[in-house]
């Protein structure tokens, strides 16, 4: 069952538009559940075959952990090269157009506080089962 859910198309197709969350008459935070399913899939290695979104998310995290910010064009290039190299070549004219308009910064910016950010992240364990599900943990608050 877990396999079927985590490998389904639905989980990674969710673009976080939050329609379901604001519409649910019972106040269920469906988008947050989708995030949880994404995390479970990555943790267990159960994602849809050929899905690009998990790779994209991992590369995103790598960039943020390294620089503190995300360089969006570098992210796109990295993901395309890893998943669809041909598409990366196809995108080159658009990339050039952005560059000509001054919208393609070449170097990523590293924030000054990156080492403190690492210290903070190191100070917390972000294991899969944290028991911390916002909105759903009121019962076991100490």
């Amino acid at each position: 069952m877990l396999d079927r859910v985590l490998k389904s198309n639905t989980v990674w197709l969710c673009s976080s538009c939050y329609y379901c969350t604001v519409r649910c008459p019972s106040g269920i935070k469906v988008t947050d559940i989708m995030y949880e399913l994404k995390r479970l899939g990555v943790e267990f290695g159960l994602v849809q075959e050929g899905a690009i979104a998990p790779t994209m998310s991992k590369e995103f995290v790598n960039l943020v952990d390294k620089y503190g910010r995300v360089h969006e064009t570098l992210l796109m290039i990295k993901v395309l090269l890893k998943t669809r190299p041909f598409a990366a070549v196809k995108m080159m004219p658009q990339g050039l157009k952005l560059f000509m308009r001054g919208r393609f910064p070449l170097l990523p910016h590293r924030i000054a506080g990156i080492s403190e950010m690492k210290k903070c992240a190191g100070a917390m364990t972000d294991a899969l089962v944290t028991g911390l599900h916002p909105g759903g943990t009121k019962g076991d608050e100490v």
Partner: protein
Amino acid sequence: MQSRIEFSYYPGCSLEGMNRAYDDSARLICKELGIDLKELKDWNCCGASAYMSIRELRAHLLSARNLAIAEKEKKDLAVVCPACFTNLTKTNHYMGEDAKLRRTVGSALKAADLQYLGSVKVRHLLDVIVNDIGESEVKAKVTRPLSGLKVAPYYGCQFTRPLGDYDDKEFPMMLDTLLTWLGAQPVNYPLKAKCCGGILMTTNEKVALRLVRSLLDCAVQNEATCVATICPLCHITIELYQGSVNKEFGTRFKFPLFYFTQLMGLAFGFNRKQLKIDQELVSSKAVLKALEVAQ
């Protein structure tokens, strides 16, 4: 003399990348309106939707660090990117209601001598302009009314969803209202708060192209000649992939887009260059000709 209001300002990664013009035009019109934006010192990425898909607590930690810095600067935080707004607001909200989360993130922040007590209000700039500055002060700055400009007001997903309680969650009106203050004509735009495809353009291109197509179809059907955006990701998606949409579906869209701050700037009398409209990928020259905007 006009009174001034102060905010810490969070531009977000997208505004120092492909959407620089949004940042520049936002700063320009804020100066004009008496809103002092002080860039949040050494801010970090909000995590977008990708970080939360891999790590939950660290994603909250990212926003908590920004909130802690804003609290130190003793100002509320003005944000322009709806995705950043959503993440910062969500963490703010969740930390407020969940003591366990507050403790965990709080003790991690201590490693960098930071703390967050929960006093910062996260505001979207459009909300600040419409509700704090208001109609009469905005109208007083209009020197070149955008008369006859038919605009599709496009909000995207995360302007009010899930936690922006200043406007309707499914059919917001704030941008429509602002456009009328500028003399423009917002057209009826039923898809105004639907998803543009955004990040799906990299991960599920076919789906995303269909979404962009329906947004443009809807704008044409309602006789708009341009689209006004609030979200930098929506903006770049519709702008950059119009050619791909045309190729995929045999359509002929050539739809110019403006960040809402650029339209404000135009109405306030600034020129294309000052507002970085010359960085656009689809030309708006024909649309702006009628307004007699200097090139």
